[in-house]
């Protein structure tokens, strides 16, 4: 029964992905029709997830994430600020038992989770936020990042607490495990159904936002340097490399990526710092624009509400706080105290959003790519009136690239490489998240895993080759649907985390938990 459901599910997924691609190759018009059919089929779901709150232009899903983050911040009495120093000490290894050396450290779990979130959201997403919402969007983005730290804390603590540890020493964890086990423990009904629902959304999100979107954007970025060529080629190359890593077990490629990606991240922040240092006299002005824009909009479409929506939305897209993906990555850490991984994980939105996204935003603002009406001091809108006019008409990655390029001429080439590597590392991370949801539904096993991995590779080719707006919309909606299920369940499970927090704090204060001398 399980196998037949698995086969049906796999077939449905492949059909959903391959139809548009095959159709597009045959005749664009048929491809368009299939895309339209797909959009019609999935449209209600996408529209529901991104629907605005009546009377506003504010998508309710963004409000859902922000309210969740605010509730967790209040419920845990601003845990992200009270335990910030402790989180840093944990990452440094001050509280790690030397006898556990060789196990997954807090630093490694954090770095792995970060490599899944730092990527296009930090480069392209921020440009979209600032390009539409103006500099003021940065303020709301930072606020959303700070609040999101509490969401990460909650989900990652539960991820470790309720993970499965198997006899062979491997582990599996994440929302599907804490939802089903946690609800059972609290005597709440529906845990299994919600866990299954989360897993389905996680698989769809992994194949879409964590795969097709990444492949698609990587191809777009490569063609900006090489000139246009069929996406199928990029797709096959990416799929072959990912296949070698996740199916062939060629760990060396993943290791190289895992080493290069943090280096690229540091280089990106370093380049941003250089631009800021060179233009140090404009930093005060830039922050002035951020604060003024946050509350007045400075002429952007939708005024300050437009800035707020863009800031919150892009922060949520970038750091994934409340989505539940990070809980899967963090659950492999070696610790006797699940809450310690919660503390460590709260650094993730800080690094991803508060530091890296803000750097991008500052570079875009300071490079003065956004056009200002000198008479009013407000930003000028483009012809369509839906975004701020830019010097070369750029938006998204191209805007970020132009902003860096205006100060460091060769940096756009490095940025292209960074985008491709970030996309690759995000794909590797999401292949694992999707796999964990897949094995939760269909059971652990080599054949079961292989089926998912092959589907994942096929979707890379589709993502790079086809223009699949509706499919990508649907996949993005699936990632946010994960947050609907996850945050709903976190409201029931947060008392478990509070009990852990109170217990740990008491032992930390009494000196029972203390640093190891290394």
């Amino acid at each position, binding site marked *: 029964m399980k196998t037949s459901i698995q086969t049906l599910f796999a077939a449905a997924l492949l059909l959903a992905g391959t139809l548009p691609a095959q159709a597009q190759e045959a005749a664009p018009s048929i491809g368009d029709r299939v895309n339209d059919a797909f959009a019609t089929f999935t449209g209600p779901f996408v529209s529901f997830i991104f629907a605005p709150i009546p009377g506003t232009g504010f998508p309710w899903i963004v409000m859902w994430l922000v309210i969740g983050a605010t509730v967790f911040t209040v419920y845990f009495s601003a845990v992200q600020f009270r335990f910030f120093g402790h989180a840093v000490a944990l990452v440094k*290894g001050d509280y*790690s038992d*030397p*006898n556990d*050396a*060789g*196990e*997954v*450290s807090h*630093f*490694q*779990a954090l*770095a*792995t989770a970060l*490599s*899944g979130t730092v990527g296009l959201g930090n480069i392209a997403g921020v440009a979209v936020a600032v390009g539409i919402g103006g500099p003021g969007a940065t303020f709301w983005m930072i606020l959303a990042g700070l609040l999101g730290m509490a969401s990460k804390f909650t989900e990652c603590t539960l991820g470790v607490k309720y993970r499965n540890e198997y006899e*062979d*020493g*491997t*582990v*599996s964890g994440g929302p599907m495990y804490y939802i089903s086990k946690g609800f059972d423990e609290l005597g709440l009904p529906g845990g299994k159904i919600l866990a299954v629902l989360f897993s389905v959304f996680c698989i769809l999100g992994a194949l879409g936002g964590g795969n097709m979107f990444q492949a698609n954007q990587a191809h777009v970025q490569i063609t900006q340097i090489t000139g246009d060529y069929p996406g199928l080629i990029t797709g096959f190359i990416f799929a072959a490399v990912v296949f070698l*890593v*996740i199916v062939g077990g060629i*760990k060396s490629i*993943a*290791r190289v990526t*895992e*080493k290069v*990606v*943090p280096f690229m991240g540091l280089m990106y922040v370093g380049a941003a710092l250089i631009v800021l240092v060179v233009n140090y006299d404009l930093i005060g002005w830039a922050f002035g624009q951020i604060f003024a824009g946050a509350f007045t909009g400075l002429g952007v479409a939708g005024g300050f509400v437009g800035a707020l929506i863009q800031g919150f939305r892009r922060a949520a897209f970038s750091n994934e706080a409340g989505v539940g993906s990070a809980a*899967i*990555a963090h659950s*492999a*850490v*070696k610790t006797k105290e699940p809450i310690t991984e919660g503390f460590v994980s709260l650094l993730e939105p800080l690094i991803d959003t508060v530091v890296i996204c803000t750097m991008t935003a500052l570079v875009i603002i300071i490079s003065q790519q956004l056009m200002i009406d000198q008479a009013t001091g407000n930003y000028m809108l483009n012809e369509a009136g839906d975004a701020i006019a830019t010097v070369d008409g750029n938006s998204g990655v191209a805007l970020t690239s132009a902003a860096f390029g205006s100060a460091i001429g060769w940096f756009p080439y490095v940025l292209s490489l960074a985008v491709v590597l970030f996309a690759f590392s995000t794909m*590797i*991370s999401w292949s*694992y*998240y999707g796999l964990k949801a897949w094995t939760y539904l269909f059971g652990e096993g080599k054949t079961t895993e292989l089926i998912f991995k092959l589907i994942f590779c096929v979707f890379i080719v589709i993502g790079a080759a086809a223009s699949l707006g509706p499919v990508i919309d649907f996949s993005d909606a699936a990632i946010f649907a994960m947050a609907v299920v996850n945050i709903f369940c976190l409201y029931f499970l947060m008392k478990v985390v509070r009990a852990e927090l109170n217990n740990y704090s008491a032992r930390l204060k009494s000196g029972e938990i203390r640093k190891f001398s*290394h």
Partner: protein
Amino acid sequence: MKLVIGLDGHSSGESALAFAKDLAGKTPLCELIVVYVIEWSPFSFQTAEENAQRHKRREEEIALARERVVDPAVAALRDAGLEARAIVRHGDVADTIDNIAHAEGASQIIVARNSAGGLTSRLFGSSTANLVMTARVPVTVVA
């Protein structure tokens, strides 16, 4: 008296072992602690899948180190009538050997001259050289 013998799995470790055996044979109530350190850093980068399998891999690495390096060494020392035990740890080689020697209250660390050469050791120094420079316990380097 306690002596810590640091092995690196290479044949040069035999000379350290032979020297320690000889020294222990001349010293009454001498305990030998054979240490093997698996080079590892908590600040390296790994994929999510590697993390999930890390505990299993660690157990395998420790079992392999015991089977191939330290257990035969300890058996040889015990056959010679000496008191010996083994410790296998992950970490930075020099730091870990020094920490173990310090914690055990050893009077001496005995290691072989590092067998690894090449660019890496020229740039960053060998584990033996690092140990000699940083150890809190006297170190004997056997040629």
